[in-house]
C-alpha cells in the first residue's frame, strides 16, 4: 500500500513537470471492459493483451492487416523441422534502461508456462528454449509445428533482471488477491510507458522517446488516457460531448446517430469472431427436451433442418443492422483462403419441415437453448430471432438468456457442458484454422479432454486425423487443402450452424486518425492527432 502511494506521488510529480513542457497531443479513449492487472501473462483476453502490447513487445508483431512482422526478433528461420532459430534485434532497451537479450527470452518462455499464467498455450509445453548467444535463441520442438509463432505477438518479453529484483518472477494470476510489482507497474520495450494505473478505472501512458523504432514512428501522440466506461449510453455520450477521442464498441443502433454528428464518425468493419449455434450430439438423451430416450441432434437431418430454418439475411439486416457478414464456415474468411468454396445451406423453411418429418418429428419437438446476453453484439436478440424462426418450422425452443458469467459457468467444461443448444462466438487467437478444428471440432470425452470448447461433443475421426496432419504439415498449399477437406466434412454433417462474423464499431472523433484492426485491437502506435 505504502509502495503504491509513493508511486502515485512520484508519477503525479513527473506528470506535473511534463505538462509544463510544450504543447502535447493527448489521446483519450474509452472501452467497455477493464484493464486490471498489468502483468501481461495474467489474462488471455483480447483487450488486455492488445493494450499491454503498446507497452511490452513480443518477438513478432502483427501489422494493420494482421500480417506477421518482425518484432523484437529481427528474423527467424526453421533450421530443421523441429528447430527454429530466432535472431534478436540489437540495441533494444527496456524502459528502465536494461538491455534486451536472449536471457530475457528464455526467462519469458519459462514464465509464460509457469503456474498462474493464462497464456500457457502460447508455447508447446515440451518446447525447449536455448540461448545460442546473446542475440540468438533456438527453439527445439518435439514435433514439427508450422504455426509455432502465430500467437507470439501477444506473448511479450519481460526483463529477467527487473522481474527477479522486484519479486515478479511468479505470474500474478487473474484470481490472485495479492498484487506484485509487475501487476501494478510496467517495464517493457514498447513505444509507450505506463505512468499511472488505477486498475479497472483509468490508465495513463506517455510516449517512450527511447523506443528502438522511434526513427520510423508513425504516430504523433505524446500522452494517452484510457478509461473504462461500461454503459453503452454513457460511452457514446462521452464521445458526443468531445470528452473522448475514441470509444469502442458502440452499439449498432447508435451508429447512425454517431454518423449524423459532424465532428465524429463511426469506423466499422468485420471482426474475426464467428458467431455460431451449437447442438449437443453427444448425450444419448437430450437435456431440456420433450424427446425422451434419444437425442434428435444425433440425426444429421435434424441438424440440417435447423440450419435451413435460419434466415441469416433477416438477422443481418434487422438485428445486426447490416453490421455483420453471414458466414458459411466456422472461421473468418480473412484467415482461410478457400472460404468461398464452402456455401451456407439455404434459408428454406419447407425443406426444414420435410427434413424434420423424415427424421420422425413431423410436429417438431421442444428443446432448451442457452444464450449469453452481454457477451456478443446483440446476442440475446439473435437468440430470440432464432427461437422465432425455429417456431415457424415447428420446433419449440425455450430460451435461457443469462449474463456471460452464469452462461459460461453452465455451458463450458467447468459446468459439465450443461446445454442442448447454444450460441457461442469464437476467434482463433492464432488466426489459424487448426485452433478452430481442434478446439471446436475435436472429439472430446465427458470431462472435456480433447476439443475443450466443442460443447456439443461433435466427433468425427476423419476430421480428427486431418486436424493432426494440419498441425504438422509444413507445406502451405497441402495444409490449405487439408483444412478445406476438414471444413467440407464438418459442413456436410452440419456439425455447427455458423451465423456470421459480427462487425466492429468504433466511434472516432475527427481529430484522431486510428487504424482499426480486425481483431478489435487498438494499437496506439497507429494513432495520429490532427
Amino acid at each position, binding site marked *: 500500500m505504502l509502495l503504491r502511494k509513493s508511486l502515485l506521488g512520484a508519477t503525479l510529480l513527473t506528470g506535473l513537470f511534463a505538462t509544463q513542457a510544450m504543447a502535447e497531443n493527448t489521446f483519450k479513449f474509452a472501452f467497455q471492459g477493464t484493464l486490471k492487472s498489468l502483468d501481461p501473462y495474467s489474462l488471455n483476453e483480447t483487450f488486455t493483451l492488445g493494450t499491454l502490447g503498446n507497452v511490452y513487445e513480443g518477438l513478432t508483431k502483427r501489422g494493420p492487416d494482421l500480417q506477421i512482422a518482425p518484432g523484437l526478433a529481427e528474423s527467424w528461420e526453421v533450421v530443421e523441422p523441429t528447430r527454429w532459430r530466432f535472431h534478436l534485434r540489437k540495441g533494444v532497451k527496456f524502459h528502465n534502461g536494461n538491455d534486451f537479450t536472449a536471457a530475457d527470452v528464455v526467462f519469458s518462455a519459462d514464465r509464460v508456462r509457469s503456474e498462474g499464467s493464462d497464456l500457457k498455450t502460447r508455447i508447446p509445453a515440451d518446447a525447449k528454449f536455448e540461448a545460442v548467444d546473446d542475440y540468438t535463441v533456438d527453439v527445439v520442438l518435439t514435433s514439427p509445428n508450422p504455426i509455432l509463432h502465430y500467437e507470439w505477438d501477444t506473448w511479450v518479453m519481460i526483463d529477467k533482471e527487473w522481474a527477479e529484483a522486484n519479486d515478479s518472477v511468479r505470474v500474478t494470476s487473474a484470481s490472485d488477491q495479492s498484487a506484485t510489482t509487475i501487476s501494478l507497474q510496467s517495464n517493457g520495450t514498447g513505444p509507450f510507458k505506463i505512468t499511472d494505473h488505477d486498475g479497472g478505472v483509468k490508465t495513463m501512458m506517455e510516449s517512450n522517446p527511447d523506443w528502438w523504432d522511434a526513427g520510423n514512428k508513425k504516430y504523433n501522440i505524446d500522452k494517452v488516457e484510457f478509461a473504462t466506461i461500461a454503459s*453503452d*449510453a454513457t460511452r*457514446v455520450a462521452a464521445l458526443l460531448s468531445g470528452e473522448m477521442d475514441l470509444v469502442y464498441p458502440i*452499439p449498432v*443502433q*447508435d451508429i*447512425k*446517430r454517431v454518423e449524423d454528428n459532424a465532428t465524429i464518425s463511426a469506423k466499422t468493419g468485420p471482426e474475426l469472431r464467428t458467431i455460431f449455434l451449437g447442438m449437443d450430439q453427444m448425450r444419448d438423451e437430450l437435456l*431440456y427436451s420433450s424427446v425422451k430416450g434419444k437425442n434428435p441432434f444425433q440425426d444429421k437431418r435434424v441438424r440440417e433442418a435447423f440450419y435451413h430454418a435460419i*434466415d441469416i439475411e*433477416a*438477422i443481418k*439486416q*434487422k*438485428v445486426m443492422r447490416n453490421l455483420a457478414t453471414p458466414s458459411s464456415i466456422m472461421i473468418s474468411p480473412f484467415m482461410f483462403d478457400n472460404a468461398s468454396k464452402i456455401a451456407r445451406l439455404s434459408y428454406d423453411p419447407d425443406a426444414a419441415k420435410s427434413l424434420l418429418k423424415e427424421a420422425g418429428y413431423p410436429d417438431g419437438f421442444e428443446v*432448451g437453448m*442457452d444464450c449469453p*446476453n452481454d457477451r456478443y453484439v446483440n446476442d*440475446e*436478440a439473435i437468440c*430470440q*430471432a432464432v*427461437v*422465432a*424462426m425455429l*417456431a*415457424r418450422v415447428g420446433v419449440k425452443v*425455450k*430460451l*435461457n*438468456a*443469462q449474463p456471460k458469467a*452464469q452462461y459460461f459457468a*453452465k455451458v463450458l467444461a467447468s459446468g459439465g457442458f450443461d446445454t442442448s443448444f447454444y450460441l457461442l462466438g469464437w476467434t482463433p487467437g492464432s488466426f489459424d484454422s487448426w485452433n478452430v478444428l481442434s478446439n471446436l471440432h475435436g472429439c472430446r470425452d465427458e470431462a472435456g479432454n480433447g476439443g475443450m470448447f466443442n460443447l456439443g461433443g461433435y466427433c468425427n475421426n476423419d476430421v480428427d486425423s486431418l486436424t493432426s496432419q494440419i498441425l504438422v504439415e509444413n507445406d502451405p498449399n497441402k495444409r490449405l487443402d487439408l483444412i478445406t477437406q476438414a471444413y467440407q466434412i464438418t459442413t456436410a454433417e452440419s456439425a455447427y450452424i455458423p451465423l456470421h462474423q459480427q462487425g466492429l464499431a468504433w466511434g472516432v472523433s475527427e481529430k484522431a486518425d486510428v487504424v482499426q484492426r480486425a481483431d478489435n485491437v487498438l494499437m496506439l502506435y497507429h494513432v495520429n492527432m490532427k
Partner: protein
Amino acid sequence: MSTDAQELERAGFWARARDSDIWYSFKRSKITIVAAIITVLIFGSAFFAPLIAPHNPFDLATLSLLDSLLPPAWEQGGDPRYLLGTDDQGRDILSTILYGSRISLAVGFAAVVFAAVLGISLGLLAGYAGGRTDSIIMRIADVQLTFPAILIALLIDGSVRGVLGGIDREQSAFYVLVVSIGLSFWVQYARTVRSSTLVEKNKEYVQAARLIGLHPIRIMARHVLPNVMGPVLVIATINLALAVITEATLSFLGVGIPPTQPSLGTMIRIGNDFLFSGEWWITIFPGITLAILVLAVNLLGDWLRDALNPRLR
C-alpha cells in the same frame, strides 16, 4: 331486528350498495369516476387480450424479423397492420402491451393476495395471542421494514433462481416474482391487522365469544377478521399499484419476466436500448400504459381510504 333493515335485506345487494355512503362519495368525486373507468378499461382489455389484440405476440411462429422496428402507423414508414409500431423482434407493440399488462396485472394481483393472506394471518395471530408470539412476529416485521422492498424482492429472486437454475425460467419467473413481491409487502398488512385486532379483542363481542367457549381460531376468523378488513382493503388497492411497479422495476432490471413473454417492465427495458437511436415507440407506449394504470389504481386507493375513514366523513 328493525323493519328497515329487513326491507333493505329484501331489496338486495344493489339497492343496499346504491344507498350506501361509499356510493355517495364515489358519485361526488369526478376524478375517482374517471380513474375507475380507466382501471376497468385497462383491466378489461388485459383480461380479454386474446380476443381484442390484433396479433398474438407470444405465438413465435407468426413473428417475422423483417417486420421489426416499424414505427407507429401514422409515422413515415409505418405499417397500418401495426398501429403502435413493432419492437426489435417484429412484435406488434399494441398487442404486446395488451398481453403484457395481463402479465403485469396477474403478477400484481397474485402478489397482493399472497402478501395479504400472509400478513393478515400473522397480524391476527400477533394481535390476538400477544406476548412472546406478538414480539417475535413484529420484530421480524420491523427488521424487514428496514430493507427497501425492491432489495428484498431482488434477494429472493436471486436466491430462488440460484436454487432452481436456468432453463425453466419462462415458467418459474411468474411464481418467483409473486413470492418475492409478496414477501416484501406482507409487513404492512400484519402491522395494520395487529393494531386493529388489539382494539377489537377487548370489545364485548369478542369477550362474549370467548365466554361461550369458541375456539380462538374461530374467534379470529369469524369475529375479529371481518371487523379489521376495512383498512386491509385500502392497503390492498394501493399495494396493487405498488406491486405492478415493483414487477416492472424487477423486469426492467432484467431479473423479472423474460423477454420471450414480455410484461410492461420487460417491454420498457427492451425499448430502452433503442431510445437513443430514435426508436422511441418501443419504450414510450408501454411506459405510458404503466403510468396511467398505476395512477388510476392509486387514485382509487386514495378515494377508498377517504371513504372508509369515519373521521373524514
